């Protein structure tokens, strides 16, 4: 008898069938993978299992008996724990307060902290109980989530994309903890789109596509590409990369950049140097929250520098110029947040196109009186959409109506449409499905091939290895010397992400550059 069984679970939002008659069986002491693209219904499914959403139809059996999981509290009571992808933590509370607030039994604070400490030791999950969560790294935050979940002594633990924010070494440590939990007879539902990982640690896999179960298999007997095919439904176009013709001329330079932390949760930058040459793609790796956002703000001109020569674009000082002026110098920028930063959610695609380009393309989009030429921006938006294969329901939808992947294709295409000589992108494919991600990466490679300098800031190491000519690593507001892709290994990059001092290889490389 399986520990948990879902029968015909269905959730309908308006007209969208997020989950459509899903059957799922999780055995005892098994690590069960739940695979699927973004929007395949994984999150909706686990939210129903955890009682955060109410199923429209279908039933859940727990140890063979039908149960109504009416709330997360109820789920915890019967023995289901969950570690969320977007952590359910409170920045202003301390680690131990975060643990305390989630518990249903009114045990005294001292006893809970002691139990948390035991769990933290037993599973190798160190956390400072008095630290405010806002000050902690993503890896530490995840440990709090896991400890919080284990305190309830759950028989089934749901992990939603647990490794997407971890360094390879941190992920290894997590896998060790998971193995320990499995040995104790607990079951784990493991949601991920990292197929190698799934093959490595999971015993069974259920693959979802467009809200339906398309396959149940043993991931160890599958290949990564056969799993990907099940998820996507067809072959993912591999990214093609020729030997790049990197030229000597540096188009984007950052020199001795220092920046104080603007607010208590921000990271200060210190001594950052980088240069990206024509035809080159430089990657900046690092665990989220190590200063990547601050670096992007400094390079894009959202934050100005103290000295003009700290940021140079096409050989000219740009440190004191704002975003529009830097754009006029031939640069283009795509920030991390699609909705609210790169695009205004309630405005249409064509209006969003104008927002980022009304200065650089004023002559094309505005008439002599400064009035907007609507037909021209609509036409340009259409051009961007077809170039990047943006799928949309209506001609000119609001930005918020697009799925994440399609909007990301649009905001990147909007900048590419100008053929920028310098392109800076932060997290180009974060939360984007495989097909769209491949499209975006190919576009960045093509741009570099045409002689532009591209700076890609990303947490996704696979992505950086796929497209970059060299990778530098950010940690604690400092940037390592770039490591040419030929010398870079996951281990080397992973160690730098974890804060290790750059070894010989990186240092000698710095001298060569």
């Amino acid at each position, binding site marked *: 008898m399986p520990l948990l069984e879902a029968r015909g679970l269905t959730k309908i939002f308006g007209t969208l069938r997020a989950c459509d008659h899903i059957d799922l069986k999780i055995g005892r002491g098994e690590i069960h993978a739940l695979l699927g693209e973004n929007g395949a219904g994984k999150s909706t499914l686990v939210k129903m299992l955890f009682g955060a959403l109410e199923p429209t139809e279908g039933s859940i059996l727990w140890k063979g008996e039908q149960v109504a999981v009416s*709330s997360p509290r109820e789920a915890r009571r019967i023995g289901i724990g969950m570690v969320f992808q977007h952590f359910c933590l409170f920045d202003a509370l301390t680690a131990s307060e975060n643990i305390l607030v989630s518990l249903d039994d*009114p045990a005294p604070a001292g006893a809970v902290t002691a139990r948390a400490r035991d769990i933290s030791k037993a599973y190798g999950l160190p956390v400072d109980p008095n630290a405010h969560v806002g000050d902690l790294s993503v890896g530490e935050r995840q440990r709090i989530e896991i400890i919080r979940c284990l305190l309830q002594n759950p028989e089934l633990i749901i992990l939603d994309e647990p490794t997407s924010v971890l360094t390879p070494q941190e992920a290894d440590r997590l896998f060790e903890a998971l193995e320990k939990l499995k040995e104790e007879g607990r079951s784990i539902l493991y949601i991920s789109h990292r197929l190698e990982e799934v093959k490595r640690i999971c015993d069974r896999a259920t693959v979802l596509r467009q809200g339906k179960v398309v396959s149940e298999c043993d991931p160890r007997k599958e290949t990564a590409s056969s799993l990907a095919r099940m998820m996507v439904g067809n072959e993912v176009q591999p990214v093609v990369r020729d030997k790049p013709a990197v030229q000597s001329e540096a188009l984007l330079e950052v020199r001795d950049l220092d920046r104080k932390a603007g607010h208590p949760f921000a990271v200060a930058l210190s001594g950052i140097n980088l240069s990206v040459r024509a035809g080159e793609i430089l990657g900046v790796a690092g665990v989220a929250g190590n200063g990547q956002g601050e670096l992007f703000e400094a390079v894009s001109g959202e934050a100005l520098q103290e000295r003009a020569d700290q940021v140079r674009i096409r050989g000219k000082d740009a440190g004191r110029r704002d975003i529009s002026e830097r754009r006029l110098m031939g640069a283009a920028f795509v920030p991390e947040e699609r909705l609210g930063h790169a695009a205004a959610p309630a405005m249409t695609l064509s209006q969003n196109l104008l927002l980022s380009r009304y200065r650089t393309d004023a002559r094309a989009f505005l008439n002599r009186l400064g009035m907007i030429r609507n037909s021209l921006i609509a036409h340009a938006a259409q051009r961007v959409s077809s170039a990047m294969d943006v799928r949309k329901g209506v001609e000119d939808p609001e930005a918020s109506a697009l799925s994440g992947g399609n909007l990301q294709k649009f905001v990147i295409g909007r900048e590419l449409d100008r053929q920028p000589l310098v392109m800076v992108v932060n997290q180009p494919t974060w939360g984007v499905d495989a097909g769209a991600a491949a499209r975006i990466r190919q576009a960045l490679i093509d741009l570099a091939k045409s002689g532009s300098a591209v700076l890609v800031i990303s947490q996704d190491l696979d992505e950086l290895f796929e497209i970059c000519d060299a990778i530098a690593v950010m940690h604690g507001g400092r940037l390592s010397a770039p490591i040419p892709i030929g010398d870079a290994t996951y281990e080397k990059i992973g160690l730098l992400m974890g804060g290790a001092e750059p070894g010989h290889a990186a240092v000698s490389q710095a001298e060569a550059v």
Partner: protein
Amino acid sequence: MFEAILITIATAATPLLLASMGELVVERSGVLNLGVEGMMIMGAVTGFGVAAMTGSAWLGVFAAAIVGTLFSLLFGFLTLTLVTNQVATGLSLTLLGLGLSSMIGESFVGRAGVRLGALDIPYLTEIPYIGRLIFGQDPLCYISLLLTAGVSWFLFRTRAGLTLRSVGDNHSSAHALGIPVIRIRYLAVMFGGACAGLAGAYLSLVYVPQWVENMTAGRGWIALALVVFASWRPWRVLAGAYLFGAVTIGQLHAQALGYGIPPQLLSSLPYLATIIVLVLISRNRRLTMMNTPASLGRPFVPDR
């Protein structure tokens, strides 16, 4: 003389302290209720009316708290259940309160009120110098001090307080953990309403035992500012309220002595002084950020 001044300072500070302490709890839960002024003035007119009609000041106090709660429930229903904009709703609540209280209180104008007497403990109150100061204040003054201690203890020492702070910090996380966000916010809003009602009753039953139209005179707004500038910490609110009280009384005496300073300037002094001091206290941005309820004023719609 000096003793009398000190006693009146407490009288000027107490209504602010009561209203701010309620609003502090409301804002800690993530709700911004700008209707404090409106709830206060409704408390004032109710307190005066009920006390005058029954002859019992305590009944007036009690009724004021109930009316304040009812008024805040209206706000809660609009902003929490119907998810209207909190700022706009709070402002309308103030306007509604001011208008409604003028209408209800029309016949009260000029009528003699009932005063809530000060405490009088034999022997203790008669101790020279400090007796009246420590043992001879009105009961609501002591209640407001106990309230400060109680709120501080509740917020930072109890599980329920932790839950309330978590809702104010991140309502989505709280919801995902199964914490009843809306219910907790309703309770916080009602507490805020009751406190504002009490503060109003204090004005019309202790401060000046009569009914004057618009007698809150912006104290609800000062209470709101106090909460923010005190970084949502109860003891700082207390300090701010007593500072305001001290400068209010001080400038009254200065006006009486007549130093040739324009009275308008002197009257604005308490507001200026309080805000300047609290701005200086809240300079520590880290502390302020740790204490600012991150969900403050953001609407919450659970997805189910």
